[in-house]
C-alpha cells in the first residue's frame, strides 16, 4: 500500500478504515448475563447466555478478548460462499458483492476470533485469494480509465483507499488536459484531429 503513508489529510489511514469497519454489526453468542448497554453509539443487549445478539464488531471483539462470547461467522465468510465468490471473481471483470469492509472484518476476525472460525485455514486462504484477484482487477482497471468520471460497483473500502491518491491525481490531470485541449480546439476550429498522446513526436532517448 505504497503512497498511503503520506500525511495528506484527505486520505484515511488503514487504522481509520479499520475503525469504521468496527462499527459493522456482528452476531455473537454471549456466555454471560449482562444488562443492556446504553452507549452513545446506540443501545445493545440485554445479554443472556446462549442467546444470540447483534452488536458492533468492536464490542464483539472486546467481549471475545475477555472470553465472554463466541462470534458467529458472518454468512458471507462461509467456505461455500467464498468459493463461489472467488470463482465468480475470476470469471468476470466485475467485482462481486462483498461487504464494503470485507478485508478489515475478515482480518479482525482472523486475528482475534480464530477458534470461532471453522476451517480457519481454508477461509483465510480463500479471502486472501479473493483479495488478490480483486486487487489485480483494480490495477488493470487503472490502466483503462480515461473519462472524467469513473464508477465502480462493489469495490471495497481498502481497495478504494489504495487507489485513491494515485487515481485521483491521474483523473485530475486528465480533466485538466481535456479542458486545455478543448480551449485549444476552439482556438483553432479547423484543426479537428483529436489529439492522441501517442501521436506526439517521440523524444529520442539518449544512448547509454
Amino acid at each position, binding site marked *: 500500500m505504497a503512497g498511503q503513508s503520506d500525511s495528506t489529510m484527505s486520505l484515511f489511514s488503514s487504522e481509520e478504515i479499520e475503525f*469504521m469497519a468496527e462499527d459493522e454489526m456482528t452476531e455473537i453468542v454471549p456466555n454471560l448475563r449482562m444488562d443492556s*448497554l446504553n452507549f452513545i*453509539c446506540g443501545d445493545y443487549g440485554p445479554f443472556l447466555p446462549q442467546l444470540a445478539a447483534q452488536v458492533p464488531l*468492536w464490542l464483539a471483539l472486546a467481549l471475545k478478548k475477555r472470553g465472554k462470547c463466541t462470534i458467529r461467522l458472518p454468512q458471507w465468510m462461509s467456505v461455500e460462499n467464498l468459493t463461489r465468490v472467488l470463482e465468480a471473481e475470476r470469471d468476470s471483470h466485475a467485482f462481486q458483492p462483498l461487504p464494503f469492509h470485507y478485508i478489515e472484518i475478515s482480518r479482525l476476525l482472523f486475528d482475534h476470533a480464530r477458534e470461532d472460525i471453522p476451517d480457519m485455514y481454508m477461509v483465510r486462504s480463500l479471502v486472501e485469494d479473493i483479495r488478490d484477484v480483486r486487487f489485480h482487477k483494480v490495477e488493470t482497471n487503472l490502466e483503462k480509465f480515461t473519462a472524467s*468520471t469513473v464508477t465502480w460497483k462493489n*469495490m471495497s473500502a481498502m481497495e478504494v483507499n489504495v487507489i485513491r491518491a494515485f*487515481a*485521483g491525481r491521474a483523473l*485530475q490531470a486528465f*480533466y485538466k488536459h481535456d479542458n486545455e485541449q478543448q480551449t485549444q480546439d476552439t482556438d483553432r476550429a479547423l484543426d479537428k484531429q483529436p489529439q492522441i498522446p501517442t501521436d506526439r513526436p517521440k523524444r529520442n532517448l539518449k544512448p547509454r
Partner: protein
Amino acid sequence: MATEESASVMDDYEMLISTTDVALLKRAWRNEKAAPEILQFESSLVQRIKEQIELAEQNEEIFEANNIEPLTVSLYQMDLDRTQFLLRSYLRVRLQKIEKYLFYVLKTDEYLNRLSKQEQMFARRCTDDLGSHLDETVLAKLPDNYRSILKQSITSEEDDMVPAPRLDTFVICKAKQYLSGLDFEPEYSMEITEMERDLLTFVCYKFVKKPLENGKIDLV
C-alpha cells in the same frame, strides 16, 4: 443471492443506526476528511455529541461509586473513547484545513461563515501570528514592492500568493439514492447527468458539491 439479501438487510440496519448522533458525526468526519474545501461546521451535532460525552463521563463516576462490574465499565469506556476520537479527529481535520487555507478562508465570507465561533477566533489569531512572523523574518527586509503577504508584488492585480482549495480535486462518493440531472449544478450538466444509488464514483469534487451539501451523497 444470499449475500445480496444480507447486504440489503445491512442497508436497512445502517439506515436504522444512522439516526444516532455518532453515525451522523462519522458521516460528517468522513466527508470533511475527503472534501478539498472546508464544509459547514455541524454546530448542533457537535453540541449534542459534547453533551452525550459529558453524560457518559458522569455515568462513569457513578459506576465507580456503585461498584459496577469492571467489564461493563470498560465497555462503556471503549464507547466513550470511540466517540471522543471521532469528535477530536473531526475538529482536528477542520483546524488543519483552516491552517492550510488560512488567508483564503479569512477573505472569503462564504468560507468564514462555515466556521464555528472558536474556529473563526483560531483563524484570526493564526493569521496575526503568521503575518507578524513573516513580516519580521522576511517581508520587512524586502523592497517595498514585495512586502505584501497576499501578493507577489505590488503590480499583481489579484491576491496571487493565497492558496485556494482545489475544487477540481477528484473524490470518491456514493449516492444514497438515485440522483438525476436536477440534483447537480446546471453548469456541470455536460459532465454529469445521473448517479446510481450505492455506486462508487470517482468524480470531480465541484460536480458533486451540491448533492453533498444537500446530504444526498457521502464521500468515501
